[in-house]
């Protein structure tokens, strides 16, 4: 167990979660699908605004590490907003609403939401 891949004996008694492998419970929110798409995520984002900005900043720092000139971020902030209207409704409107509620630039919220496809690169 003390050499990679550190395979342990099968754990038991871990539930209900506690101890060093449990970092915390997860908060519940309601998203009302009857609301206009751009309004739906306001409650969640208002609560998580700081954490979202911090995560986006970490991705930007990473991008700057790869492309120190900052051109990658410029590309995201300038070009990705053009992509929002090509994304299917209501997701494009929900993304716009998240950018407005969080104050994070629209291109960076788009990047966060298409990260799966980007990451396969």
């Amino acid at each position, binding site marked *: *167990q*003390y050499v*990679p*891949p*550190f*395979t*342990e*004996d*099968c*754990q*038991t*008694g*871990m*539930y209900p*979660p506690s101890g*060093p*492998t*449990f*970092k*915390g*419970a*997860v*908060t*519940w*929110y*309601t*998203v*009302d*699908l*009857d609301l206009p798409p751009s309004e739906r*995520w306001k409650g*969640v*984002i208002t*609560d*998580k605004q700081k*954490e*979202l900005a*911090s*995560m986006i900043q*970490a*991705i930007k*720092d*990473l991008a700057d*590490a790869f492309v120190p000139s900052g051109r990658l971020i410029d590309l995201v902030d300038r070009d990705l907003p053009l992509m929002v209207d*090509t*994304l*299917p409704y209501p*997701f494009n409107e*929900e*993304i716009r609403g*998240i950018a407005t509620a*969080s104050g994070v630039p629209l291109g960076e919220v788009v990047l966060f*939401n*298409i990260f*799966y*496809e*980007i*990451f*396969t*690169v």
Partner: protein
Amino acid sequence: CTSLVAEDPDGNLIHARNLDFGLFMGWDLKNRSWVITEKLKPLVVNIEFTRNNHTVFKSTNFAGYVGMLTGIRPHMFTLTMNERFSLDGGYIGILEWILGKRDGMWMSFLTRSVLENATSYAEAKKLLSDTKLLAPAYFILGGNQTGEGCIITRSRTHSINPLELDPKKGRWYVLETNYDHWKEPLFLDDRRTPAMKCMNQTTQTSISFKTVYDVLSTKPVLNKLTTYTTLMDVSKGKLESFIRDCPNPCMPW
């Protein structure tokens, strides 16, 4: 990621997953952790999506991300997705999209549409198997009847070699990490073998939230990329999620 659907002897289905993300995205030497993984953990939220004041579906999300990676349509089906790596990857899908060829679907918008609109396991399975995608993926789907559980391995255009639950033949669970189930996983990243060893050691008669959480808490199934663990019980309509940590020594992935 590790996703599994297991059926107990009474035909109840449990769907569970570890969401691992942030590989190669900045390593924090001091804390021996991945930078992005640690930034994602505070963003983990459980969401109840309602329409006309009724619950449509529930999910575990990263706040700010409108697509779905983990969700339950109570009493109907449960759905998780794991990342699949393929040379015919997302960059081709994105290139086609930018060039105006937009007949494919963004992966997380498909899972969101399925959870929001499909009203049966069969309908969800058809949508997840047949919809053209921009990037390859694994969809792990659980239903609400005995035998309703499958791993849908997707290329951008096809479903390849679906693997189904078959309790009568002894396959009482299906388990997916990030490798095609008909191939050996990369030896450097074999989380499948330890997870299956622990499932087999648990045995079908003891399957429950408790024992499945134990399996997902065993290293290297639990690793430095694990952000959260979710447990779902379709017949009870229950979803529980927990933010995770992996104390040293622990595999980086």
